[in-house]
């Protein structure tokens, strides 16, 4: 039996780094400090694993599977590489290299998640902060369209609501918590104030708040179902905070208005910095979706939806985003890693995926693996391999391996490198 402390949880964007793991016979038997989701990921790590590669559903040796993957990717005209967010930076680097080699398009789950936030950031910029600053200084926290109590269970405790920091000695009682959402949630029940807005009215409410922060009077009784005096009070509260932070979720950027909603939020928060200190952070879901954006950005200049078909990186969400490419039936092969688009994508996109040859790097059977021509099992990033991941606030952490992967199963990075080596040897004429 071995115990590991300060282990980083590879589940959500919080990357809690204080997990204690007990391992017996190469199996995680106990966890400490972890939330229910994290505990389940560690304990059930070995459940239902794919342990050998398959081609057309038939078991195949690793070498054969790699060969088949190479054939599919190198002969495709417009291959798509998709996923990335549940693996480490080391693998993401290889995935980008591979995409460049075959002249394909690479996209991450950002595309169906906080892609809209990135587009907004590219329009207006954003005032942001690492989570420790929030813990140490913030006395006003606004959760907008996010529900950390269920999606990021330890966020309240470690970063945003209850922790005592350098200038927040009273923890929870020194902070005022506001939740803005279209319905009551477990998070809203823990807040000091819950503001319910009409679905799809985020943009209106944010613009109204922005006007109020600027000291303008509004001649309407309510905006987005909220009495104007409540918004006035919130605007004053924001301006009067010592340090404030908004944590917003997909409730904001997936409702009508999408990146324009986030744009309005970022503009409001920037505006607030004329009065006090305010920041705004997206609640990222997958544990390394931030890393996927970061690596893609430093290697290509762009955070997601990058097309290499012309030999250099191009970026255009809507054109080179995975859902759109698939729905337009533009791609003729795909490599999927750390994601299950067959079950999460819209029907037209998923349908096209089932018509083209797909190579999937996966740990467990999923709808995507079931429609794949080639399935190559991989190690669990952050449990069975080391690697780097970025927390939702861009803080980089080194994941820690605690158990060995099943016999003959390698990390994403190793599998991708094997594919790359063989494709290089082919000297595909794609330059």
């Amino acid at each position: 039996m071995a115990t590991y402390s300060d282990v980083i949880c590879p589940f959500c964007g919080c990357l809690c780094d204080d997990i204690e793991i007990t391992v017996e016979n190469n199996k995680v038997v106990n966890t400490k400090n972890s939330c229910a989701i994290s505990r389940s990921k560690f304990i059930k790590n070995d459940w239902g694993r794919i342990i050998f590669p398959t081609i057309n559903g038939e078991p195949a040796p690793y070498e054969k599977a790699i060969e088949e993957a190479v054939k599919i990717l190198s002969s495709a005209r417009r291959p798509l590489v998709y996923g990335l967010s549940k693996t480490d930076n080391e693998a993401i680097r290889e995935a980008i290299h591979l995409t460049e080699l075959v002249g394909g398009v690479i996209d991450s789950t950002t595309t169906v998640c906080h892609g809209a936030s990135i587009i907004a950031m590219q329009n207006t910029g954003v005032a942001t902060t690492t989570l420790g600053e929030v813990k140490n200084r913030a006395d006003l926290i606004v959760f907008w369209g996010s529900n950390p109590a269920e999606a990021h269970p330890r966020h309240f405790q470690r970063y945003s609501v209850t922790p005592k920091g350098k200038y927040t000695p009273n923890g929870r009682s020194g902070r005022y918590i506001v939740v803005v959402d279209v319905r009551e949630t477990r998070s809203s029940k823990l807040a000091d104030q819950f503001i319910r807005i009409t679905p799809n009215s985020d943009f209106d409410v944010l613009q109204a708040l922005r006007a109020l922060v600027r000291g303008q009077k509004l001649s309407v009784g309510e905006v987005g179902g909220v009495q104007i005096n409540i918004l006035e009070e919130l605007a004053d509260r924001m301006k009067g905070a010592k340090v404030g932070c908004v944590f917003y979720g997909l409730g904001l950027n997936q409702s009508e208005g999408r990146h324009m909603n986030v744009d309005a939020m970022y503009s409001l928060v920037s505006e607030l910095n004329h009065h006090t200190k305010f920041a705004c952070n997206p609640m990222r879901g997958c544990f390394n979706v931030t890393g996927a954006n970061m690596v893609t950005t430093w290697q290509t200049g762009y955070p997601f939806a990058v097309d290499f078909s012309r030999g250099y990186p191009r970026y255009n969400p809507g054109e080179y985003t995975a859902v759109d490419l698939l729905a337009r039936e533009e791609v003729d092969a795909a490599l999927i890693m750390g994601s299950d688009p067959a079950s999460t994508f819209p029907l037209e996109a998923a349908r096209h995926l089932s018509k083209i040859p797909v190579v999937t790097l996966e740990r467990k059977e999923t709808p995507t693996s079931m429609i794949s021509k080639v399935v190559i099992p991989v190690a669990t990033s952050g449990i069975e391999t080391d690697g780097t991941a970025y927390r939702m606030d861009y803080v980089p952490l080194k994941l820690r391996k605690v158990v060995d992967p099943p016999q003959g199963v390698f990390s994403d990075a190793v599998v991708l490198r094997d594919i790359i080596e063989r494709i290089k040897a082919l000297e595909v004429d794609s330059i």
Partner: protein
Amino acid sequence: MRSLIIKGGYVYDPLNGVNGEKTNIYVCDGKVVEEIEERDAKVIDASGMVVMPGGVDIHSHIAGSKINSGRMLRPEDHRKDVVKKTKVTRSGVGYSCPSTFVTGYRYAQMGYTSVFEPAMPPVSARHVHEEMADIPILDKAAYTLFGNNLFTLKYVKAGDIEMLKAFILWLLRTTKGYAVKIVNPGGVENWKWGKNVGGLDDLVYNYEVTPRQIITSLAKANEELGLPHTIHLHCNNLGVPGNYETTIETMETLKGIKPKPGRKTTVHVTHCQFNALDGDTWANVRSGASKIAKYVNGHEHVSIDIGQVIFTDTTTMTGDGPAQFRLWNLTGNKWVNKDVEMEAGAGIVPYTYKKENLANSIQWAIGLELALQIYDPWRVYLTTDHPNGGPFTFYPKVISWLMSRASRNETMLEINKSCMKRTTLVNDYREYTFNEIAIMTRAATAKAVDLKNKGHLAPGTDGDISVYDIDPLKWAPSKYRELEKAFMLAKYTIKGGDIVVKDGEILSTPQGSTYWINSAARNEDELVKDLEADFRDYYSINFRNYPVEETYLPRSYPIKLEAV
């Protein structure tokens, strides 16, 4: 055995007193050697060309969370400058926020072989190293941010120089950093409350220490430790008219610090152009460069780099959050602010320097005035504070302005007229020589960071060499366009004995080394106890997950300090 002879070029090797002499350089197994047999070696014909040690850039934002946020912020910047992959190179984008691969290629194409990233926030040091690992060819190092760090402030307040010294060594080792970087000391901490400091004697909230105390304590500790580089200082009041006074006051306050043995400087004031403004407002702003130059000429404890402004669209990014906030208010461009817990912060604002804009014209002149009026090229270095003053790819343009009055004249005639009155540039007829350029772009910078095997070509040094296709005997300042062309695309760049560039084209992409300080103080146990307690209470990550593992440095080059 890989051997090279660079034959018959005009060699500029100022550290060894070689000033344009026609001589051969021999390289064997990656090092410069006395001599080798010609039949054993590959011969490069450099006759009629300039040969220099590989360029060493002392200050350029090439890696880490700041430049990467800049990249993410600006797709419009990338679209005008795309780079295709080749058989040996990766694809990418260029202009003001180049991708990592392109950063390596373009520096090498200009004959540069070592570049220093000047602002590494400790908690995201891992990110800096991940990006540096993806910058090919170049040798690199990063300066760790100290000036607003919780522990710096704590030990400065306590007046505990021994703990401060122990902390400096611990943090450099932990982050794999090379030097002590200070950005707007005290101001960045106050910015966490939405405030700033306005001068050397303002107070930092909750600590009751002043910027003056922070700077002098860090400089003293730095020199007592004998670190290879002096403190690397981004002064208070950056970008504020009248700030030249703060800059001179800062230099003056460091006059009394005793430099480490073998060195005369105690401070490097970086991108000095941004801190050399005279006047009270942007309306009556004028150049304070002459006053700073006069001070530097009279005081040998100061070195600077110029932070030259280029008339182009670029992306400003500094660890100075409040300065970037000011710039956002001035421009209304998009603005990114990033606060980093307990340590640092950063801001990013895209910016276009325009010739018709008076302030920009003055800024352009200030950089050149500093370079022309400081007479010791060993203490004034060429930078654009990439990408703040402009992209590093404009260095050849800066060299042409420095070497040719005619080149300056051409630009002077295009810029805002009031610049003539408000700067002294029109009076200056000095023209840099090739030797002086070799000093300010490699010999002096290598010496300033004390990399003994860089910046010169004595036997035993690293085989980092650049060959530029320009004949110094036939060249005249009127031919500045040829000069720009030659420095833009080196005829040859040799890195560690490998030909990495030929005729401006990348031939190979070896992995460069990363230099870092690997030393510990005797009182480190006591320090770590203190750090652990504060980590538990105030950081959002655990102490054990903080240090950057050496595996992040594909070619790690640790340096042990002699004095410790």
